[in-house]
Each structure stands twice: as C-alpha cells, then as structure tokens.
C-alpha cells in the first residue's frame, strides 16, 4: 500500500532526500525543524505583546 516516502527539498542543493533523514543525501546539510525557531518566536511575540499592553494601559 505504501509508496515512496515523503521527500524533503534541500534548501542548499535542491536535492531530494527522504524527509525522515536528518541530513541531505547529496550535500550533507543538516535539516532542522521549522518549529525550532517558529515556536520560540511566537511565544516571544505573545509575551512582548502582553508586556506592551501592560505598559500602554498602565498608570
């Protein structure tokens, strides 16, 4: 039932590597999850927004 696995495009060499592999099969670049920067960024954004709201509405 299962066909070819999901493949990831290397942002450097544009080669296709099975998405489960941690490195590009062609240039060896290490793949990183996008969540590594997105989740901290979103949390920081909410905290900064909360801080700004408190400062803006403060006495």
């Amino acid at each position, binding site marked *: *039932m*299962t*066909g*070819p*696995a*999901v*493949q*990831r*495009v290397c942002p450097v060499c544009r080669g*296709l590597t099975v*998405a489960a592999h941690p490195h590009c099969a062609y240039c060896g670049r290490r793949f990183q999850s996008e969540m590594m920067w*997105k989740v901290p*960024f*979103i949390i920081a*954004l*909410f905290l900064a*927004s*909360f801080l*700004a*709201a408190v400062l*803006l*509405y403060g006495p």
Partner: protein
Amino acid sequence: MARYKESVVTAAFAPHLQPGETLHSHAYGVKQPSMWLILPLYALAIVPGVVAVALLTKEYLVGLTDRRVLVLRVSGGKADVQEVTEYALGERLPVRTSNGSLFAWITIDDPQRPFKAKFHRAGYPNNRENALAAAAAIGGTA
C-alpha cells in the same frame, strides 16, 4: 438586553434619593478608554494571533498527472518547494474527503505519507473540484 435588572437599578438609586423624591426613569451608559488606546490594545491582541496562524499554516499544491498525484509543500510567493509527496494512481489509499460550502477537505490516512489539507473554493478556478478529483484518483470519493 439590559445590563442591570430594574430592581438592581432602583436599589442603587434608593439611598441617594431625597425624602419623598421618586425616580421617573433611568438609563445606562459607558465611557470607554480613548479609541487611541483601544485600537493599539486590540492590535496587540490580534496581531500575534494572526502572525502565529500565518507561521504555522502549511501551503500545498496538489497535482494530478497521468501517473501520480503529487503533493508539494510550498512556501513564499514563488512557491518554493519544501517537500514532495507522491501517490501512484490506482493506489487504494484510505482517503477521506468532504465538500462544504467553502472548503473541500482531503485526509489521507497513510502511515508513511499522511496528508490533510483543505482547499478553498476561491483558491483557483475549480479548486475544490480539482482537489477532489486528485483524491478520487487514489482512493477517495469525488
């Protein structure tokens, strides 16, 4: 709908009425902060939510060829391809579809190549129909 019940309002006025004075009518009003303050505060509440949704949304292009259904995960204005998933035509995959007034939904419960996305009717001409046709080619119902 009234903010306060009649009995609550009359009770609030009662201690402040002079002897023999009667309350004819009453009204309820508010004074909100300046709009110059309300608008930035609303923006502060909404903008992070909008940014979070935008960052966490994945975009897909689904193509039906004479051999396969290709699913490309793309990003950016030039549809920079991030991931490629392929399903051969005729694969009897556990595909579930639904078609609503705005979106068509496709869910592929393949353990190795799971996929789930919705397709807006205004995404492209015949966007929902094309998405459902691709799903039907690999086991869904159009």
